[in-house]
């Protein structure tokens, strides 16, 4: 908007100035956010390509690809760890959805005796440290042969992921009119098809958002994995911790790059999905 434009139309001029201030504020917020999120990543990225980097130099003295070669070499186990982490988080997410949708429906729609107790129990893992719960579960897992297994870790990840899923879904179902399902039933759909054709499309955004949350929560688990996996199940966070404590900043940096990919993808996806915009960037612009 040019100055001449502003002066020629007196009344909307204030609005235009406000509009411009809005744009400035919005971009300030977005740049701040991006800086906050992206800045810590920059040194990691540089580390992953560094060969020697001494304090107080601003940049490394020498560069190399050895960290990345290590990450992608089949013998280092990084790729296998990536695969296991994906399996565990994907599985935990799937289980969260399968359990969380009906549980959320029950909580969101029905009033029943003891509902508040059930709600409290579901939220408990968010409040009580997961490790306390996991310690109790560990004994059971050992008995049933689940300790030190991938599946066992996947199950124990449900402790932190399920509450998110149930919370999101109970919110979704509180706003969902089940008459639609009843309508489908009288038109000849059995309960399963009524759910599939009528309810699922309506609650899908909730499932996606809840699922993304669940995935990220599982993706970030460290203590539960260590406890139940007993060091046999090595997910990316464990691997990262190992290299970080060993002082291998270059490899830590490279693995970190792998590690943040799902977060970034999910951020862009959800921005797009939540705002319903055609492009992911457009979605961000609406923040």
């Amino acid at each position, binding site marked *: 908007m040019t100055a001449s434009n502003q002066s020629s139309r007196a009344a909307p001029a204030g609005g235009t100035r406000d509009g411009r201030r809005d744009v400035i504020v919005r971009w300030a917020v977005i740049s701040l956010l991006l800086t906050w999120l992206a800045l810590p990543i920059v040194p990691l990225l540089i580390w992953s390509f560094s060969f020697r980097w001494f304090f107080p130099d601003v940049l490394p003295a020498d560069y190399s690809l050895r960290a990345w070669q290590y990450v992608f070499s089949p013998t280092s186990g990084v790729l296998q760890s990536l695969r296991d982490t994906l399996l565990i988080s994907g599985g935990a997410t799937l289980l969260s959805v399968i359990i969380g949708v009906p549980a959320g429906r029950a909580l969101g729609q029905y009033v029943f005796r003891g509902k508040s107790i059930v709600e409290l129990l579901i939220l408990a893992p968010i409040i009580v440290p997961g490790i306390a719960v996991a310690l109790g579960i560990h004994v059971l897992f050992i008995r049933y042969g689940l300790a030190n297994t991938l599946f066992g870790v996947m199950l124990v990840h449900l402790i932190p992921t399920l509450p998110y899923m149930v919370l999101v879904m109970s919110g979704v179902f509180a706003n969902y*009119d089940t*008459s*639609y399902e*009843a*309508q*489908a*039933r*009288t*038109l*000849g*759909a*059995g309960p399963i*098809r*009524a759910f599939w*054709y*009528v309810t699922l*499309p*309506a609650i899908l955004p909730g499932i996606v958002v809840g699922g993304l949350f669940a995935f990220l929560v599982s993706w970030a688990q460290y203590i539960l994995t260590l406890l139940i996996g007993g060091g046999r199940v090595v997910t990316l966070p464990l691997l990262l911790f190992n290299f970080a404590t060993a002082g291998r900043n270059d490899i830590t940096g490279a693995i970190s790059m792998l590690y943040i990919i799902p977060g970034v993808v999910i951020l862009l996806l959800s921005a797009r999905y939540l705002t319903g915009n055609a492009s992911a960037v457009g979605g961000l612009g609406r923040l």
Partner: protein
Amino acid sequence: MTRLNLHKLTKRYRGKTEPALDDLSLEVESGSLTALLGPSGCGKTTTMKLIAGLLEPTLGDILFDGRSILGVAPERRGAVMVFQNYLLFPYMTVAENVGFGLKMRRVDRATIDRRVAEMLELVRLPGLEDRRPKELSGGQQQRVALARALIVLPKLLLLDEPLSNLDAHLRFEMRDLIRDIQRQMGITTVFVTHDQEEAVVLADKVALIFDGRLQQYDAPTAFYETPVTRRIAAFFGGVNFFQGRRNRKQFDCAIGTFSAPRSAIADQPGILSIRPEDVRLAEAGAANSVAGRIHSHVYVGTHTRLRVSVSGGHEVCVVTDAEVMKTHKPGDPVTLRFPEEKLWVLPPDALVEPTAAHREDTRFGVTKTKGCR
């Protein structure tokens, strides 16, 4: 074509002391159109959901063609319900909505497409296949919902307040459309309404329900000519009620003595009633008449409503020709004739139902009437 029987149907929602539906029995003839009429909260939707299988009755039975369908899942009953707020599936197009029932019956695509087009033609919405529900007006949504129900040729069509969300003009149009289609297809139909006029115009038979109890199940005219209780008469616009008692061939009441109609039981108290449109203006001294003075009049276009003060501080409401406006003024004396064949005697309220809503003063002659509307 299906005959529907409700047999001693009772529904008590959990945690409620009063049943939403209490011992309701009625038979809906095959191919007929029946109205469930009653004020808000009387249990109309509950009845529909019970028939559709969306609720389980607490007691009683539901029969289609004489066979109980209580154990049958809603999707197998063949009773399609159209909800008050249409409930078009928002994620589907109009065509997908209308074709839904056939898809669930695994009918092939080509047939579905053809039948959808036919149905949209039938409800006078041709060519709207690809629209989304939110791109339709209320009336159009209503028609799509109707088409979606009709396409499966239901044994029983259940319409929950099909007209209440439409404006007056559309309401008349939809009313005729529903009536035409129902006649044409011969589908046994039950529809819910709280509007007595709608019930009377559309239905072959009307079931009037108050507080979950069936009050009267009859042809529409019966509710005007031979209502069973004063409350029913009042629901259908009756306003002239006078406590009295039959005395041989006479009926004595607070505003005068009239020849006793056959509905009056000898030596029993009763409520004399006459519909406002049946009261005639007459010459002074005519038989079966009462003298009074015009209290006020309202011109309603097609007719005039008079409030006439008569003896004992009572009022008689009269609906008469629009012309009367010009010849009569408030304060003018008039004589009102009550044609004998139009008089109807109702049982005293106390004998029928001393419900809270109607615990009015029912001592001889001081029954309060709702007044002329």
